[in-house]
C-alpha cells in the first residue's frame, strides 16, 4: 500500500539530528513496549509481514507523528484485537473482562534467550530456478496495491541491474494477508541515482533494493 511508511525520497522532515550517546530507551514505557511486542509475537498468531502491514496501516498523521515504539504499540493493539486475544473495551479499561483466544505458546522468562537466538529465518526452498542472474538488466513493475508490498514507490517502473541472487524467501505481499508463504527468489537490484531521481541527482549515487522475483521484468 502507498502508506505513510513508504518514505524514500519524501521531503520536509528536517535534519536527521543524531543524538550524542543516545540511550537505548528514552522512557520506561519504551522498554515495556519492546518486551510486549516481542512477547506478543511469540504467541504465534501472526507473522512479521502482517505486523509490518499493521504498522503501515496506521493513519498517516498518527504514523508520522509517532515515535517508533509508539508505532509498535498502536499496531500491537490492533493485532491483539484482530486475533481475538483482547477487546477494545479491555484495552480502554486496562483490565481483563473475558477469556479470549488461546495462544500457541506464552513466552516465559527462561525461554527468551533461546527464542532470540533462534530468530525467525525467512528463507524457504523453491522448486524453480532463478529467472534472473547477476548482470541481467531488469525493470521493476509499476503497481499500486492497496495491500502489503516491499517494493517502495521510488523504485517502481525503474531500470536497474541484478547484482546478486540472494536466495529464496517468504513472499511478504502474500504472507501479510494469510495467503501463504509462497516463497520466491530475491535479488539485489542496483539503480543509478539518475534513473530514480532524474534531474539533479547525485552523479555518484547508486541505490539498491532487495526485490522478490515477481517485482521484476526482463529488459
Amino acid at each position: 500500500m502507498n502508506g505513510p511508511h513508504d518514505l524514500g525520497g519524501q521531503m520536509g522532515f528536517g535534519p536527521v539530528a543524531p543524538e550524542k550517546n543516545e540511550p537505548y530507551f528514552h522512557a520506561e514505557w519504551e522498554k515495556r513496549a519492546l518486551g510486549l511486542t516481542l512477547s506478543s509475537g511469540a504467541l504465534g498468531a501472526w507473522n512479521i509481514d502482517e505486523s509490518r502491514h499493521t504498522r503501515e496501516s496506521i493513519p498517516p498523521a498518527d504514523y508520522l507523528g509517532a515515535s517508533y515504539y509508539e508505532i509498535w504499540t498502536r499496531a500491537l493493539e490492533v493485532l491483539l484485537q484482530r486475533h481475538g486475544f483482547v477487546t477494545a473495551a479491555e484495552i480502554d479499561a486496562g483490565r481483563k473482562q473475558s477469556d479470549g483466544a488461546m495462544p500457541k505458546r506464552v513466552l516465559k522468562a527462561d525461554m527468551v534467550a533461546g527464542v532470540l537466538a533462534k530468530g525467525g529465518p525467512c528463507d524457504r526452498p523453491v522448486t524453480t530456478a532463478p529467472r534472473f542472474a547477476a548482470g541481467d538488466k531488469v525493470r521493476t513493475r509499476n503497481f499500486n496495491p492497496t495491500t502489503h508490498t516491499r517494493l517502495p514507490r521510488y523504485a517502481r517502473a525503474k531500470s536497474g541491474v541484478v547484482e546478486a541472487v540472494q536466495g529464496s524467501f517468504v513472499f511478504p505481499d502474500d504472507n501479510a494477508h494469510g495467503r501463504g508463504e509462497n516463497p520466491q527468489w530475491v535479488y539485489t537490484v542496483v539503480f543509478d541515482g539518475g534513473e530514480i531521481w532524474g534531474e539533479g541527482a547525485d552523479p555518484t549515487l547508486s541505490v539498491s533494493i532487495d526485490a522478490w522475483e515477481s517485482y521484476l521484468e526482463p529488459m
Partner: protein
Amino acid sequence: MHDDDHDHHHHHDNRYTDMQARVRALETVLTEKGLIDPAAIVVIVETYETKVGPRNGARVVAKAWSDLEFADWLRQDATAAIASLGYAGRQGEHMRAVFNTDDTHNLVVCTLCSCYPWSVLGLPPVWYKAPAYRSRAVIDPRGVLAEFGVTLPESKKIRVWDSTAELRYLVVPERPNGTDGWSDERLADLVSRDAMIGTGLAAVPENAR
C-alpha cells in the same frame, strides 16, 4: 521561537505520558490474561541493554581487518562468519557484509520500516527509525552524512542499501592507517555503531592524524 520550542516539548511530554499509560494498560490486560510473562520482558530488555549491541559488530569488523581469511568468509557467507563469533539470531538471520573501499562508501537504510541487523548492532537508534533519515538517505546521502560530520571526497561513489527484504546489512568501514599490529580488541574500539551503518567512518588513531 522560544514559545514554539516550549509548545513542542510540552506536546512531546504529553505524548510520552499518554504512551506510558497506554502501554501500562496493555501490559496489565495481557498479564491478567496469562498471555505474557512480565519477567520475560525484563530478560528481553536486559539482553539488548547489556549483551546484544554494537560491540558485537565492532568485533566482526576488527576480525575482518586483521584476518584476511575471515574477511573473505564474511564476503561470501556473512551469516556463518558472524555466527562463528557467537552472534546470530533475531534480525540477524540473513546477514550481508558490505565493504567500504577507496572508491565506494556504503550506507544502509530501511525506507519502509526499521530493518536493522540487531544481532551485531543491537537496537536501532531513534534517528534510524525516524522519517528524516528514512526519507533522505536514498536521495541525499551526502546531506545526511554532513549532519553526522562526515564529508566524503566528491569523486567517491555512494552506494545506498535499502533493506527492503530480510537481508540485514553490516558495513565494514575502511581500516584506518596507523593500526598495524593492533589487537582485535583495540581495533574494535575504533569501530562505532554509525561506522557500521555507514553514517560514520572508523576512528583514526592519534598517531595517524
